[in-house]
């Protein structure tokens, strides 16, 4: 059973359908008590960081989320669900976020007109450090992105996948321990995206070697 947190940050249909298509049962909830008994958590979202944070506060979901991550439950953030895990975002004139991952979320700066913002489309992900969610996924596979902002990891060890766009070479996959998050939308990334979600459903939240060497160039 996959618990999907519904904090009114966009449409969850595609996330739900993607998990169902790989044979998973899904529970969509905005209730703290249901999140507290979750075995695997998906934290999706589109839209703006501030609206997402306001909604998390209003629904009293911040403490349950912190607690589950601390407990070691496998946790997958997607898009805005990734961005709010960082300390702060430049969006909406500066938004304080959860600070579970060190670093800031920054806005892409386009070097010229030919580079459009938001980034919309398929971009390549370089595997920066080996991780169970990349099982049977080739390095430099493409995933579907829709974003104007990107996370800038303060601790480079948290960078699991790396993508280049506009002025940034950013962490398109980041996390540590039982926490993993993607800037792209695996639920919209075809078969390879579904494989990543399937890998997540199989993952127990531990890493084979805790001293994974940083393979970044």
């Amino acid at each position, binding site marked *: 059973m996959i618990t999907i947190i519904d904090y009114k940050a966009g449409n969850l249909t595609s996330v739900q359908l993607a998990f169902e298509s790989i044979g998973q049962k899904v529970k969509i909830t905005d209730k703290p008590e249901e999140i507290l008994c979750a075995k695997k958590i998906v934290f999706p979202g589109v839209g703006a960081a501030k609206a997402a944070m306001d909604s998390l506060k209003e629904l009293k979901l911040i403490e349950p989320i912190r607690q589950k991550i601390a407990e070691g439950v496998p946790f997958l953030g997607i898009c805005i669900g990734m961005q709010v895990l960082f300390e702060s975002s430049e969006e909406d004139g500066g938004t304080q976020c959860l600070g579970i991952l060190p670093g800031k979320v920054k806005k892409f700066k386009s070097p010229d*007109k030919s580079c*459009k913002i938001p980034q*919309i489309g*398929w971009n390549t992900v370089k595997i920066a450090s080996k991780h169970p969610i990349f099982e049977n996924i080739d390095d430099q596979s493409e995933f*579907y992105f*829709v974003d104007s902002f990107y996370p800038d990891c303060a601790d480079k060890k948290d960078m699991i996948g790396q993508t280049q766009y506009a002025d940034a070479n950013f962490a398109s996959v980041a996390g540590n321990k039982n926490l993993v998050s993607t800037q792209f939308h695996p639920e919209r990334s075809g078969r390879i995206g579904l494989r990543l979600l399937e890998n997540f459903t199989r993952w127990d939240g531990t890493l084979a070697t805790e001293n994974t060497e940083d393979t970044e160039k």
Partner: protein
Amino acid sequence: MLTKRIIPCLDVRNRKVTKGVKFQNNIDLGDPIEMAVAYSDGGCDELVFYDITASAQGRPIDIEMVKEVAKAVHIPFAVGGGIRNLDDMRKVLLAGAEKVSVNSLAVLNPNIIAEGAKQFGSQCIVLGMDPVKVEKSEKFPSGYEITTQGFRTRTGLDALEWTKKAQDLGVGEIVVNSVDADGTQAGFELNLTRMISENVDIPVVASGGAGTCQHLIDVFIEGKADAAIIASMIHTGKFTIKQIKDELIKAEIPIRKKW
């Protein structure tokens, strides 16, 4: 590197995919769900569905079809045709579409773009436009006028001014469908696509006229498009998506290679 998107367009009429030339003489081609799966498995990057008779028949868009598509494919897809208001947009998005495309509705009520962007996010709102070539004049400085209802209604709007206005209202992406080139398979209208693309900061999708791989190479390089819609050239079986992509890769266009 961000790749250029190849987007098959499925015009749907009575639950059948259909294709005409310049919006006329349509013939039925097949089942929309089966075709969506085949193209997605074949490596297309996105899909777009237009319910081409919803508007004319004054009925809402076929939501059941949208739901079936969303279950069957896990790549982004947009839905347009017959969107009448915010509630229709919501239904389409909740049914599982990534994007909703408005065209005539936005001409009649431009504010729908701003309202949709505010409610659902700019990235969900696509503006489709059908410009036709006209004499350059004070009224039409770009030399293109926006039409609706498949060329039948002229709006008096200049294409470039309309594009900029739509961007200011918060549209996330623009599909430029050349009425003059639609269904001809004679190539995209490159000047039009380039003019729009150079004047906005949001992605521009070229539509109308794709017939060969070279046309696609041209629209990405000369036309400066971020994505291109194809229809006849794959619906007829003349090309597969793989063949198209192989040619684009040879021409060093950044293209999604694994699926």
